[in-house]
C-alpha cells in the first residue's frame, strides 16, 4: 500500500478526520495544500509513487456556489491533475464534495450529482447516519450522509465503471438513481472511488449514534476496522 495524500485548503473541510481514520487503519498520510499544489503542481506530482492514493475530502470547495465541485474541478483540470495521477498509476478517492469534484470532471462518464429530492420535492442539506449496502463485499455498512447535492443522475457511465454502494435505509431518501451512493472505476492501474456518505468518522464504536458504554463489545471494534470501506477497497485492489 502506498502513501495516502489528502487534499486540504480552499474550503475542503474533512481533511483531519480523513487522515485520522486512515492512520487508525495503519496507513501513512500527508496533506497536500491546494493553494500550493495549484501554483506548483510539479513539486507534488514528482513525489508521487505508483499505488499512492489521493483523497479529496468533503467540504465546500471554493464555496460551491455554482453546482458542487465545479470550481475545484476546474482548478484541478487546469493542471491536468487527474490525467497525471492516472499516468503515474496512483488511485483517487473522493468523498462527498470530493465525489462531486470527480463527477464535475466527468471521470465516471456523464454523471451528475443534483440537489436532493424527497418525493419530488427539493430537500435541504441533511445530516443522518444511513444504512448502506455494498453487494461486492456482501456487507451492510452504516455511515453518515451529510449533503444537499447527492442525487445521482446517470446519463452514461464511463467504461469499467460500476456502482458499488447503495442506500438501504427507509428513513433516508435523496432521490438518487437506483439508490446509488458510490461509484468506482478502474483506469489502467488506477482505481477511482467516489461516494457521498462519510466513512472517515466511523472507525470506533463510540462514534455510532446508538452507542452506549453499557452494551458495547470488543468484537464491534475489530469488525469496524476490518469492514471499513477503506480497508475493503484497499484489500480488493491489492489482490
Amino acid at each position: 500500500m502506498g502513501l495516502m495524500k489528502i487534499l486540504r485548503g480552499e474550503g475542503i473541510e474533512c481533511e483531519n478526520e480523513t487522515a485520522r481514520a486512515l492512520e487508525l487503519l495503519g496507513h501513512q498520510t500527508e496533506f497536500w495544500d491546494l493553494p500550493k499544489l495549484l501554483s506548483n503542481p510539479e513539486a507534488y506530482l514528482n513525489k508521487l509513487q505508483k499505488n499512492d492514493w489521493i483523497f479529496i475530502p468533503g467540504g465546500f470547495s471554493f464555496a460551491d456556489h455554482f453546482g458542487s465541485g465545479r470550481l475545484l474541478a476546474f482548478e484541478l483540470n487546469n493542471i491536468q491533475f487527474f490525467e497525471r495521477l492516472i499516468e503515474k498509476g496512483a488511485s483517487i478517492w473522493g468523498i462527498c464534495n470530493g465525489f462531486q469534484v470527480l463527477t464535475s470532471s466527468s471521470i465516471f462518464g456523464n454523471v451528475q450529482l443534483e440537489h436532493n429530492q424527497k418525493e419530488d420535492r427539493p430537500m435541504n442539506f441533511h445530516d443522518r447516519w444511513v444504512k448502506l449496502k455494498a453487494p461486492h463485499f456482501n456487507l451492510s455498512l452504516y455511515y453518515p450522509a451529510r449533503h444537499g447535492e447527492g442525487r445521482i443522475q446517470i446519463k452514461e457511465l464511463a467504461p469499467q465503471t460500476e456502482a458499488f454502494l447503495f442506500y438501504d435505509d427507509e428513513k433516508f431518501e435523496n432521490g438518487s438513481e437506483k439508490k446509488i451512493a458510490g461509484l468506482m472505476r478502474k483506469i489502467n492501474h488506477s482505481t477511482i472511488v467516489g461516494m457521498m456518505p462519510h466513512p472517515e468518522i466511523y472507525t470506533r464504536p463510540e462514534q455510532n449514534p446508538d452507542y452506549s458504554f453499557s452494551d458495547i463489545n470488543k468484537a464491534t471494534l475489530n469488525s469496524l476496522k476490518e469492514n471499513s470501506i477503506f480497508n475493503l477497497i484497499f484489500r480488493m485492489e491489492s489482490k
Partner: protein
Amino acid sequence: MKIYVTKAESKTFAFISIKNEKDLDLDIQKIFQNSLLPLPQATTKFLVRSYLPGVSNPVAESLARVLKIPSKDIRVDLALELTQELSPKEAQEREALWKEPAIERLESKTFESYLLWLENLKIPQREDTSYLPTTPEAIGLEFSAEELFVLKNAEEKQGRQWNRAEWELFAQTWSEHCKHKIFNAEIKLTKEGTSTSSLFKNKLRNPALKIADERKDLYLSLFHDNAGVLRIFTPDQKASSWGIAAKMETHNSPSAISPYGGASTGIVGVHRDILGTGLGALPIANWDVLCFEEPQHSESRPEKALAPEIIRKGVLRGIQDGGNQSGIPTVQGSTIFDPSYAVKPLVFAGSLGICPTDFVNKKAKSGDKLFVIGGATGADGLRGAVMSSRDIRSEDFGGSIVQVANPYTQRCLTDFLIEARNKGLLTAVTDNGAGGLASSVGEMSTLTGGATIDLSHLRLKFEGLLAWEKLLSESQERMTLATHDPEGLIQLLKEWRIEYDQLGELNTSGRFVVLHEKGNVKEKLVDVSLEILHESCPQLKLSSHWTFEDEKKAYLKEKLLPQKYDLEKALSNPQALSREAISRRFDHEVQGRTLRKPFAGFTQEAPQDGSLLEVMEASAYIALGHGLAPREKDFYMSVLLSFDEALKKYLLATGQLQYAGLLDNYSWPDPLQNDQSLWKLSTSGDLIEAITEISEIPFVSGKDSMKNNDSKNRILETLVISVFGSAKGPEHMPVGFITQKGSKIYTWKPVADSVINKTHSSASALELSKDIIQKLLRRYEIIEKWIQEKKLISAKDTSTLCPMKSLFEMCLGRKKGIHFSKENSYEELCTQSSTLGGFHLVFSQNFDFQKEVPPEFQNEIVEMGHTTSTFEVKFSNRTLSLESLRNAYFKGSEQLWA
C-alpha cells in the same frame, strides 16, 4: 463587459457579468460546461434579484478567485423568468421568500433593460469630508452630555477640533456595543437603598478572578481577550498542553432586518472571535440559541417588522450556511417562542475553539508590523456598532449595516492563520467585527501603548470609499495581525494565496494615528491619545425605583397554576416540537469530534442533553451545556433554571465540575428606559455572584446586548448561561434513551419551584437562592460521582413541559417503553412541574440503591417503574402506544423547520 447565463436553483438563472480585459470565455466554458445557456431575447422578462451596490457578494467572490481577477470586476444576479406579470399577491410572496431584505432588491426587468441597468451601475462619487472639523450633530452621531463634555474639553486642551473621522472613531469606540456602558454603570436601586459601582467589575469579573487566581493552571485567560480560555485536562486528570476557548455573541439587530445576512455574519463573526483569541484558536464547535415570535403573528408587533416565517427561515439558513460552509459542527441549540420577540428576534451564536497553551497570550512588541488579511474593505457594514444601540427600524437606519457572510474566504484565512501561528510568525491577532480597523487596531494599540497605520493603499471592494469609511468599514472576513517577521509572513500569505494590506506598526507613542493620502500628500486623518480613546469615557449612572415588592406583585398578577396537558396536543406546539429537523440541516459531525449526537439511538430520534466533543490533539474530551428560561416569571427562578439547565447538560455529557468555566450572555430591553429591566439586571448580578462563589466555577467570558426594544415593545429579559470544560469521555457517558428492558427508572424530584413566592425581600430571596444553589451543587457532585463510576446507564434532564414528555423522549432512541408503578398516573405526569435539579435516571445492574444513594436523598429519588421492550407506556388503569405521541412530536417539526 461580457455576460453569461447559467442555470441556478430551480427555475432560476444566474446572470454573470464580467468587466475585465482578460478573455475568460474558455474558462467560463470549462467551469459551467453544459449548464451555460444562450443569452435570452432582449424582450424576455425577468424578476431580477440583485445585491445593492456597495454590498459584497460571496457568490461572485469565489468565481473571481478561480478566474484570478479582482472580485469587483464580477457581478452575479439571480433571475426568474416571468411568462406573465406577477399579480400583486404573487409579487409580495416572492418578495417575502426570495429577497434578503436590506441587502438585495427585486425588480422586474426585460433582459435589455437589465443590461442597460448594469452598464450604468456606479457608486456615486462623493466629496470626502473625513478631514473636516465638525460636530457630532452635523453628522448624525449621538453622545451623552457627559461624553460630549469630556470630548469638547479635550478639543480645547489640544487646540484643535476633532474631524469627522475622529468623531466617528469616538462614536464607535464609546458605543454601548463596544464599551458595555450599562454593564459598567453605577446602578442604584433607590427604594431598596442598594447600589453597585459596576455590575461587570463587582459581580462578574472580581469574583471570577478570585477563583481563577487560585487555579492558574486551569484558568488561562478570562475577560481580557476575544474569548475565555481554560486548560484542557485528560480523563485521568493530567494537564494537557492545549486550551479550550469559548465565546458566545448576539446578532439580534442585523437578524431583525436581514435574517439570513444577520444570522450568517453572527456565526462567522463568533468564529473570528475564536480565531482572534491569543495568537489564534481553531473553532471546533458551534451552539446557538434562537428566540422567535410565535409562528402566528403577535397582536403587538412593530409595524415594519418582517413576518415571523421570513425571520425564522432566513435565520435558520444563515446558521446552516455559516456553520456548514465553515466546516464547524453545530452541536447544540435551543429555540424559544414568545410574542415579545416580535420586536427583535434573538440570535445567540456560540463557538468553542482549541489552541496550544503556548499561544493563549498575545505577545506584541513595539515595532511589530501590522497587517490586515482576507477580504478587501468595502462600503458594507458602516456604523454597525453605533446603530445596534438604536431603534433598528427608524428611518436613519441604513441598509448598509447588514452584510452576508462568506464562510469560504474565512475558511481559507483559518488554514493560513493556524500555519502562521504554528510557525511563530504572529505576535498578535484580532478580528475585524464592529468598528472594523478602528476597533481592531485601536484595541491592539493598547498592547504596546500606541499604533500608527496608513490607509492610503488599502485594497477596496468599491472605488470611492471615503477615508473615514475605510477606517470604520465592517467588511467581514478580515483579521488584523501583528508580526515581528513581515517578510516571513508575506511569503506564507503568498503560498496560501491570501490577500493582505500592510497597515503600519505598533509603537509606544501613547497615540492612535491614522495616515491617509489626500491628493498626493500623506496627512493625519486621526491623531488621538489612547488615554482619551480608551480610558476617558465617563461612567453611566443609572437608578431604578423598582423594588422586590413591585416584582412580587407583577409576578402574582401573571402567575398561572401548573398546567395539565393533553400531551399529544401539547407536543404539536412549536415550543414542544422535536428540534430534530433543525439539527439535521446543520452538519453536527464535521471534524469527527461529535461523540454525543444531538439525536441518538438506532432511530436517531432521542434528543440528548449536552454535547461531548473529542479533542484528539490533547487526548481529551470537552463537554458543553447551555440553559435559559426567559418565560419563567419568577426572575430568581429564571436565573437559577438557566444555570441548572446548563450544568445538567454539561454533567450528562460527562463534563467535570472541577474543570468548568461559565459564559453569560444577556439580551435585555434597554434598562435606561425601564425600571423593572434595570432591577432585573441588577438582581441577576447578585445571582451571578452567588453562583460563582458557591459553585467555585467562574464566568470567563460574556456579552450583553441592551437595546432589544422599541418605544412600545420590549423583549423578555433573556439570560443564556453556558458551561464548558474537560470531560470524562464516552466510556462514562449516560445516554439520553432507555437501552434495554427490565431496568428500574427513577426521577430525582426538583429542588424548588419558587423563590419570589416564598420570600419577602431582596435579601431573603437572595439567601434562599444561595441555599438552592448549594443544594443543586450537592446533586451535581453526586451525579458526577455516579458518572465517573459508570453507575448511570441513561439519564435525562426533566422537561419544562411536563415529566411525561422527557420520559417519552427517552423511549424514542430504541423504541422502548415504561411500565409505571401504581403510584404514578398519566395525568399527574402530564402536569407541569419545576425542573430545577430534576433528572430521570436509569442505573447499572449492580447499583445498590440503599448503599449508593446518600440517606438524605433517598426520599427525593423516586422509583417510577421499569423499562419494557415495547414502544408503549403502561399505567395501572391504561396502556398507551407511544406512536401517536411520536407523530405529534415530529409532524409539525418538518413543516416549521425543514
